[in-house]
């Protein structure tokens, strides 16, 4: 275990202590105990940042977990992991601080649950970004889904919270499962679960027929997590979570896990046309869909949710475009397409800052006014000046206006799409010109919803009669976190190159390895003024057309487009879920009849069909007359009497005769054991039979006389057919197995016991030695079963319910 392992596990360890702290120090807000954890982790991780233009050193520490399956908990820290780890712990610190003021320490708020889930999420997320082993990543990945849906359902008494939690769980876990399948395919191709080793097998993967399925399955995981179209529908419903959670999980970190996965796998799949087209097109479409849908929202958090979806699409499409970089020579640490990756990384950071602050602001507005509905809000500018200032910064950055950091990455995004239009690989030149157009249209809508958010909330008439509370400025503690984030927006806006060689270049290095000579670094220089180029004109167009649309809002807000705010794709989810439940109920009703006979029939028929089919299909039926032991004449007698007495049993109508005949069968079996040289078995069988007869008689004394079976003839015949089928299949299987083993003799494993019984266990009775020594645990568990049965019998008979009814 290294310190880095501890980084991922520390939040989990903390989670264990949370309930104790909560109950022990009831008067102190539990958040204060949590706060040091992400802060310390953040400070610890910062020291890995390379300073003074040196290249980042990667760190690797390994702990075996399931060595026999090649699964090791390997922590690998490179630029990409470090970027995400810093985001998780940094934003995590601010979110915890914010939550202390947002969720009051009241009796009805189960703070201990909240912080346990939050710690679980933080640890899982750190685990995802720090691990190198695919299986470990998968485990942590699903833990983030779990923690996320628990957090969404934090106020579980609300119907909508439960709906949102279930939806996010179903969609992300389905994706995670697909991802696991993809990982397994990768393992089949390369024989390793380590990502870095998989990267070195790039050629094997690309030439394998499993390449495309593996890629699509992994992308399914990434797209569901990162809310890409058409899986984005869970994110708006996830807004039912407390706002700190939305700020943390659903904008800054968890939804970016999909981005992380795509970035992580770019070295494996990047440079392939399928990868390029799927990611770019889904990303751009999500960008467009999200920004257009955001305009229709009336809930501030709804706007932010769709905005997050569209921004995630933006980052995703940039990663897709950037993957083309593998086809180009890198000159002076940059090429036409590394710009796209640079923009993706930069926007990732920017988005975390401005979206985090905006979510927190919306939380403040909700907290202080009691609503998030833009139709009820307005005129808050003078009432909440600090909040307004923060919002202004955040919104301007989101809209892509200078001098904030959003402008920088938005410009680069345009550059990236424009460059791609001239791409001469993957046949892009045919429809590549669509990329910048889509990007531009989506940016216009982005601008529109930014305006709606800002002006509908802070300008216009204040309507105190529509608000549940009297609006006033938030307490200082609540404002700290958004202020920190907003200052970062400005700092990164003015000094973007603070990030350049500390984190962006190392991250690009991990996304696009192998493009540079050893010792070289990607050239990163971000600045505002590029001259009067196409990108600047595009931004001007965005502002102009966006403002036009916003000013004419009165006209289009009457239309059905605006009035129906729910995403139409939800229809598929809701009806799909209903259909699934109906379908399984229908299947269930057919199958679960409540009759023992039916259940047994299903099992027997299944047995007959499956085994019979395999016997027939493999052509395995064989009888071997040669290799059999000799039959002594009395054997015929014993077998015959056994068969006859067995056949008689179903026809007996007196219970006493049935017991006796079954007893006789037991004794005959004991006799067979004697013949087959099994004295222990014979003794046991005899004694069991004796005791059993006593028990049978005791119990049967109370049971009613056997009645004639009142089955319909059809039933009777089907029973007969099933039982004959089962008997036949068992007989045939046994015969074929016997013939097979005669043809392919194997030395029995019991030779070991025969040879070692005396030497190792000091016993001459091999059967007994196996029971008490070699396989002692089996025997121990067996008598444990007897003990449990004994207790169950006592409970059944002695502990009847008070009213004399059976439970």
């Amino acid at each position, binding site marked *: 275990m290294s310190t880095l392992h501890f980084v991922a596990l520390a939040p989990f360890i903390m989670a264990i202590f949370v309930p104790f702290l909560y109950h022990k120090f009831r008067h102190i807000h539990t958040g204060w105990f949590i706060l040091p954890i992400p802060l310390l982790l953040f400070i610890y991780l910062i020291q890995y940042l390379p300073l003074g233009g040196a290249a980042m050193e990667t760190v690797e520490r390994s702990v075996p977990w399931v060595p026999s399956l090649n699964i090791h908990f390997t922590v690998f820290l490179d630029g990409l992991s470090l970027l995400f780890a810093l985001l998780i712990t940094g934003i995590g610190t601010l979110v915890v601080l914010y939550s202390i003021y947002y969720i009051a320490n009241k009796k009805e708020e189960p703070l201990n649950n909240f912080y346990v889930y939050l710690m679980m999420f933080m640890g899982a997320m750190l685990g995802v970004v720090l691990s190198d082993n695919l299986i470990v990543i998968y485990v942590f990945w699903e833990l983030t889904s779990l923690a996320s849906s628990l957090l969404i359902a934090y106020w579980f008494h609300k119907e909508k919270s439960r709906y949102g939690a279930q939806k996010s769980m179903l969609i992300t876990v389905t994706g995670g499962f697909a991802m696991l399948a993809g990982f397994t395919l990768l393992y089949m191709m390369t024989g390793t679960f380590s990502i870095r080793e998989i990267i070195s097998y790039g050629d094997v993967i690309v030439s394998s027929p499993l390449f495309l399925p593996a890629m699509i399955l992994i992308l399914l995981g990434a797209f569901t997590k990162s809310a890409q179209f058409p899986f984005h529908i869970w994110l708006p419903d996830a807004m039912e979570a407390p706002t700190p959670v939305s700020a943390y999980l659903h904008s800054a970190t968890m939804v970016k896990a999909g981005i992380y996965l795509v970035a992580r796998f770019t070295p494996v799949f990047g440079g392939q046309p399928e990868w390029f087209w799927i990611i770019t097109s889904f990303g751009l479409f999500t960008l467009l869909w999200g920004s257009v849908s955001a305009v229709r929202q009336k809930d501030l958090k709804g706007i932010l949710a769709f905005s997050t979806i569209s921004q995630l699409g933006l980052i995703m499409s940039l990663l897709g475009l950037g993957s083309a970089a593998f086809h180009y020579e890198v000159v002076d640490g940059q090429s036409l397409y590394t710009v796209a990756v640079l923009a993706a990384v930069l926007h990732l950071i920017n988005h975390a800052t401005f979206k985090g602050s905006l979510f927190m602001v919306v939380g403040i507005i909700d907290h202080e006014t009691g609503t998030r509905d833009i139709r009820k809000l307005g005129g808050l500018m003078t009432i909440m000046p600090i909040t307004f200032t923060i919002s202004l910064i955040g919104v301007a950055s989101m809209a892509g206006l200078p001098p904030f950091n959003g402008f920088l990455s938005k410009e680069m995004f345009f550059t990236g799409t424009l460059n791609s239009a001239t791409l001469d690989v993957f046949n892009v030149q045919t429809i590549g010109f669509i990329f910048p157009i889509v990007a531009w249209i989506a940016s216009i809508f982005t601008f529109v919803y930014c305006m709606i958010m800002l002006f509908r909330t802070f300008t216009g008439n204040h309507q105190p009669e529509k608000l549940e509370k009297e609006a006033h400025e938030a307490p200082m503690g609540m404002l700290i976190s958004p202020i920190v984030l907003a200052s970062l927006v400005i700092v990164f806006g003015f000094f973007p190159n603070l990030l350049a060689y500390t984190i962006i270049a190392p991250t690009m290095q991990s996304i696009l390895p192998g493009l540079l000579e050893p010792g070289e670094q990607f050239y990163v220089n971000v600045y505002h003024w590029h001259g009067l180029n196409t990108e600047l004109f595009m931004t001007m167009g965005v502002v102009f057309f966006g403002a036009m649309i916003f000013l004419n809002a009165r006209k289009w807000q009457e239309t059905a487009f605006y009035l129906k705010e729910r995403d139409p794709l939800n229809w598929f989810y809701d009806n799909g879920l209903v259909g699934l439940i109906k379908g399984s109920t229908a299947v269930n009703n057919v199958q679960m009849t409540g009759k023992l006979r039916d259940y047994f029939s299903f099992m027997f028929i299944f047995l007959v069909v499956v085994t019979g089919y395999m016997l027939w299909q493999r052509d395995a039926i064989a009888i071997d007359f040669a290799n059999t*032991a000799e039959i002594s004449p009395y054997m015929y007698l014993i077998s015959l009497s056994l068969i006859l007495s067995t056949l008689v049993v179903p026809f007996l109508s007196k219970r006493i005769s049935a017991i006796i005949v079954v007893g006789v069968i037991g004794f005959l079996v004991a006799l067979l054991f004697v013949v087959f040289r099994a004295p222990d078995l014979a003794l046991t069988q005899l004694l069991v039979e004796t005791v059993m007869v006593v028990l049978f008689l005791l119990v049967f004394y*109370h049971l009613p006389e056997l009645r004639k079976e009142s089955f319909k003839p059809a039933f009777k015949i089907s029973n007969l057919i099933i039982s004959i089928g089962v008997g036949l299949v068992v007989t045939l299987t046994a015969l074929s197995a*016997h013939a097979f083993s005669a043809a392919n003799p194997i030395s029995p494993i019991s030779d070991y016991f*025969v040879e070692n019984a005396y030497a190792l266990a000091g016993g001459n009775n091999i059967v007994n030695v196996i029971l008490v020594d070699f396989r002692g645990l089996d025997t121990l568990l067996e008598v444990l079963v007897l003990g449990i049965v004994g207790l169950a019998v006592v409970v059944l008979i002695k502990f009847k319910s008070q009213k004399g009814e059976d439970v």
Partner: protein
Amino acid sequence: MEILMILTVGVLVTVATYMILTKSLLRVILGVVLLSHGAHLLFLTMANLKQGSPPLLGEEASSYADPLPQALILTAIVIGFGITAFMLVLAYRTYKAHGTDNFDELRGTEDE
């Protein structure tokens, strides 16, 4: 010998299955008992019925019957004994509580 035994086992299994599919609690229990007899014999048969001496080293024979299946069957017999006893008591309680041993009448309520 093996073939004869396998046929015997087949008959045991067929009758056991038939008994299990009936409606009466009693018959089902008897069916399970028969089925376990069948399974034990099948197990013993599949381990080859070679006519060695019993697996007691004191016999000092040149070959022994296979001890491993015997140990397993011994375990199975005792477990089967326990399970049968449990089923019997269950049947007894069921009859005492509901006054019937017919499975069709023992179905749960509709809303279950």
